[in-house]
């Protein structure tokens, strides 16, 4: 199967080249950048459409477009969401034309203008299983604590599930969170959560656009099985200085951007910090102030910084320097003093837990020619997790001092250095070829425990338990071509070749990719895709509970890479001048090499640090159907999404080798999202979600059995078959109202929101507990009741 696809890909690429070189009619190229006329910011995904030739292109990640057509004069339309459509006439009868297009924004999202033009309509796109939500629409959705969260918005889309109440992890088409490639300006981020997963690290004010691909992956994507999430930071306003701010009950953020040299270089800087510590500390201190011998001082904060520099080096070259830094820091220090009958005790405890992400990316865009565009990237990404405890006790009795100390520090992390080149090549209107290569050096720190024990012995213990760093090198090559076979049939064919070198072992993988778009009737398209994927990094996590303690681990001599193949097919259409899109997709995915803790395994379960002995590998499948109705424009906008799905796992060492449902096997998942402009001052939004309860393993039975060699018959409490129970269904309504201050042109707004408006108890976990009378009950614990919040947003 795989080799057939590979041969097909190669054969096809050859024919593509031939058809290019064999052109007999002279062809000329229109190329350039598409930007926002007000800010100079490049626009991703803007459409340039030729009605005469019935072909079009979409601007790439850097706003560059190129369209090669037979010699002639053409009428073109240029369209982008929220911007006024442009029409222009271009003479391509004698030479290539370089034309940079500046789009004028509509006055407001919803009133504007068109975007559903031709090439950008869902039925025109070859790519399937890809979804985008405009950032402005995300900002208008209800948000917990008034803090807009990009990943939680994605969880409202069909095929994308949340990990549980409040968490920002993504579970895409039955995959686990590590199977999502999260790219911020093209750099992988390994931890995307703040506050133990309740917020994501992505600051909406710093982001230009966001798109998620759940299947039908083009060959340029690789390295993960389930999805690719591309998030691009704003480049920075090239014309004027501006700022955006948001003050909410959880955190505040400020974004400033502007030109360094007008129309030549710009910057964007965005910062966000929570102030939970500032709010809670005085309360906790006052609660413990009655006891002068005891004090406790908890602290928690997170922050993130986004920064970007954008420099037009010349007419054909641009440099981008992007950086992100985010950190969560939680700690408690407590001290206790006690004196009694000549004996005094002094105890000091400090506990700390922090995790941090940093990325840096230097990217160089170069127009090799009107038909070819290249990007070279050097990137660095690092994620570290540390947790430690330090307990010291001093007892003074009869003049003798006895001091003891226990301290431990657990550390893990991953660091990547990467170099990448990507080339876009549009030889003619029928082909759009992309190819590129990448090399990444991963350095894993799979968990090490520094332990110090001092009980007054002559040689206090101070030792390191666990494994040292482990490195691997990952390389890939890819080539793909988006081909118009005719006016109604398009293909994207490609192959992704990847190679991992680790511990004197090499894993090679050839991953064919194919996507088909067949417009079988006016306004309707049938789409189908096939993709194989390979993943060389794994996140070792407890099922159902993602924590910063989760370990990033490489494939090794003993741990084979994760692999999958996915086939998807569906129908897509749009109506109402492209305002309303509708898609129905079915998919089937098989996975191999899935990693899981063995039974009894988990964080700190095996202090010798030999993580490979704690894990086991297995297979999985997932299949289902997704339906999406989406209205992107107008005073009433939103979408309705429904997913019917199954996801199962099989590990020889788990559940007696039998298949079991994945914990996020969610039969039904519904989301209804609505945004409504009521009048010039008020707008409203609401989101309602429903999902089948999470599959969980609960302690089920008690029995006694004799011990081997010991004269006793202890009682064992054993769990059900794996994930045999379902927690209660999840459903929640969030609403928000936005009031724009009159005469500020929308630049000052108050946002009132209610999270979980009808206060449904959405279970986070379930426990069997013993009551005071000895009886036992099973309880579901939720996290968030109804949470009202208010935020103030401003723009200057």
């Amino acid at each position, binding site marked *: 199967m795989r080799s057939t696809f590979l041969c097909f890909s190669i054969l096809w690429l050859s024919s593509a080249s031939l058809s290019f070189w064999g052109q007999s009619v002279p062809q000329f190229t229109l190329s350039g950048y598409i930007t926002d006329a007000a800010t100079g910011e490049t626009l991703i995904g803007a459409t340039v459409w030729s009605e005469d030739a019935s072909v079009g292109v979409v601007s790439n990640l850097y706003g560059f477009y190129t369209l090669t057509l037979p010699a002639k004069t053409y009428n073109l339309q240029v369209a982008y969401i929220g911007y006024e459509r442009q029409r222009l006439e271009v003479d391509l009868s004698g030479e290539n034309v370089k034309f940079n297009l500046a789009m004028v924004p509509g006055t407001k999202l919803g009133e504007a203008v068109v975007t559903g033009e031709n090439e950008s309509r869902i039925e025109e796109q070859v790519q399937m299983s890809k979804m985008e939500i405009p950032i402005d629409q995300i900002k208008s959705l209800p948000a917990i604590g008034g803090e807009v969260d990009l990943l939680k918005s994605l969880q409202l889309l069909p095929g994308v599930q949340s990990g549980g109440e409040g968490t920002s992890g993504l579970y895409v088409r039955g995959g686990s969170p590590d199977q999502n490639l999260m790219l911020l300006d093209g750099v992988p981020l390994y931890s995307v959560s703040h506050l133990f997963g309740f917020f994501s690290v992505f600051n909406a004010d710093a982001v230009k656009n966001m798109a998620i691909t759940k299947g039908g992956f083009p060959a340029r994507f690789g390295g993960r099985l389930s999805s690719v999430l591309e998030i691009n930071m704003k480049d920075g306003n090239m014309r004027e200085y501006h700022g955006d701010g948001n003050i909410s009950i959880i955190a505040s953020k400020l974004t400033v951007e502007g030109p360094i040299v007008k129309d030549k270089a710009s910057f964007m800087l965005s910062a966000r910090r929570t102030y939970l510590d500032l709010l809670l500390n005085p309360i906790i201190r006052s609660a413990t102030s009655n006891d002068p011998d005891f004090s406790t001082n908890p602290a928690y904060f997170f922050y993130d910084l986004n920064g970007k520099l954008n420099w037009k080096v010349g007419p054909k070259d641009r440099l981008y320097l992007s950086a992100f830094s985010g950190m969560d820091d939680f700690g408690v220090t407590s001290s206790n003093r006690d004196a009694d009958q000549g004996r005094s005790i002094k105890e000091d405890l400090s506990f700390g837990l922090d995790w941090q992400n940093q990325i840096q990316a230097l990217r160089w865009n170069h127009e090799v020619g009107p038909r070819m565009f290249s990007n070279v990237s050097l990137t660095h990404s690092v994620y570290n997790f540390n947790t430690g405890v330090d307990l010291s006790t001093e007892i003074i009795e009869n003049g003798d001092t006895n001091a003891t100390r226990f301290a431990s520090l657990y550390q893990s992390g991953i660091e990547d250095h990467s170099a990448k080149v990507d080339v876009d090549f549009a030889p003619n209107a029928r082909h759009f070829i992309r190819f590129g290569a990448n090399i990444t050096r991963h350095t894993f720190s799979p968990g090490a425990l520094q332990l110090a024990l001092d009980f007054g012995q002559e040689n206090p213990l101070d030792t390191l338990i666990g494994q040292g760093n482990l490195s691997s090198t990952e390389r890939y090559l890819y080539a793909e071509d988006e081909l118009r076979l005719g006016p109604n049939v398009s293909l994207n064919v490609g192959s992704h070749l990847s190679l991992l070198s680790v511990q004197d072992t090499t894993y090679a993988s050839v991953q064919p990719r194919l996507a088909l778009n067949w417009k079988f009737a006016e306004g309707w398209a049938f789409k189908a895709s096939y993709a194989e994927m390979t993943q060389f990094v794994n996140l070792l996590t407890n099922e159902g509970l993602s924590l910063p303690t989760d370990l990033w681990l490489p494939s090794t001599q003993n741990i084979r890479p994760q692999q999958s193949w996915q086939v998807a097919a569906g129908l897509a259409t749009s109506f109402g001048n492209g305002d309303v899109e509708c898609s129905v997709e079915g998919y089937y995915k098989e996975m191999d090499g899935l990693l899981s803790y063995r039974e009894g395994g988990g964080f700190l*379960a095996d202090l010798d640090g030999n993580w490979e002995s704690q894990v086991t590998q297995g297979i999985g499948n997932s299949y289902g159907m997704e339906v999406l109705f989406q209205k992107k424009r107008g005073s009433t906008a939103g979408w309705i999404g429904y997913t019917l799905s199954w996801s199962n796992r099989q590990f020889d060492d788990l559940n007696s080798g039998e298949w079991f449902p994945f914990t996020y096997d969610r039969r039904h998942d519904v989301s209804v999202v609505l945004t409504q402009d009521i009048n010039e001052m008020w707008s409203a939004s609401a989101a309602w979600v429903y999902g089948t309860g999470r599959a969980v393993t609960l302690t*089920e039975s008690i029995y006694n059995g004799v011990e081997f060699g010991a004269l006793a018959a202890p009682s064992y409490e054993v769990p059900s078959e794996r994930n045999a129970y379902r927690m209660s269904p999840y459903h929640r309504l969030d609403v928000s109202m936005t009031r724009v201050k009159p005469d500020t042109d929308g630049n000052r707004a108050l946002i009132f929101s209610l999270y979980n*408006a*009808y*206060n*449904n108890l959405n279970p986070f976990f379930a426990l069997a507990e013993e009551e005071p009378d000895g009886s*036992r009950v*099973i309880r579901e614990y939720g996290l968030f*009741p109804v949470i009202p919040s208010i935020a103030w947003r401003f723009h200057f």
Partner: protein
Amino acid sequence: MPSPRLRHTPLGILALFVMCMSCQKLESGVVREIEFPEHDPRLAVTMFVSPGDTALYASVYQSAGVLSVGGSTPLRDATLSLRQGEVVLAQGDSAHWVEADPWNAWYSGPFMKIPLPNALVLEEGPLSLEVDASPHFEPLSLVQPLPERPVVESTFEAFADSVDEGWGYVFYYHRLTVDLENRPSERDDYLIQLQFRDTLTGKDWYNAGDLSYPDPRVDYNSGCACWLAQDNGSDNVSMANLVFDMYAGEEDEDITEWSGEYRLVVQRPTEDLVRYFDSVHAYENASGNPFAEPTSIQGNIPDGFGVFGVTNKVVVTIP
């Protein structure tokens, strides 16, 4: 077209309704009890058999649901029979139930102790266990093979090592090197116990000894309270030179006048029993760890709990 006030009235009523519902629910907090399916009781039988046993220990219980107050119930009327071929080796009934020793009673229920007139002698061939726990359960019959007798060689070195802990404390250790067999094309698992008995104060044997150095072939297993040595089915893993240290005394004791004796017990278990011990080990390790994955205990009782475990053993008395 209705006036804006009229248009917004339904929205206001809906908002009011939602808020009233929310406030009413707030008092119930974010915890709720849920119904749990009624437990379907299952038979739980555990018994271990090995040649040389002078008594057999077993348990026959009816499992209980996790919400049960009393826990699982001993089936004292159940009868139990161990056979090899047509030969009845042992039988247990209500008369054989005993309470746990006082120092174990805090965590132990009653169990069956079936004294044997002579040390158990087993022929080659499978053993069968029959349990009649009617009317609660259908009769159970289970067959397990008798594993091959292990081939054991050992070398004992008295006072081979000493460790100066400072403050005048010097601890002495004997060393025992154990050579076991790796049978071609067969999986070899061995349960190893080094035991000590104080001949003056008692007749019971206690586990003693530790690996001299970390050995990837050997792990301590809390399921059997022994060292579990495994070749994982590979012919390339030598099972020779497993080195253990046994505590021999301190300097301030007269170590040459110790009144104890040592022995080495090596048992070859059935595959089912290895799997059972591994799962009990994981279960006990995970106990109390909130981060640990749920752990089941892998037995071999059809549609029930527990294990019928058979080993073949060699006991080496150390001079």
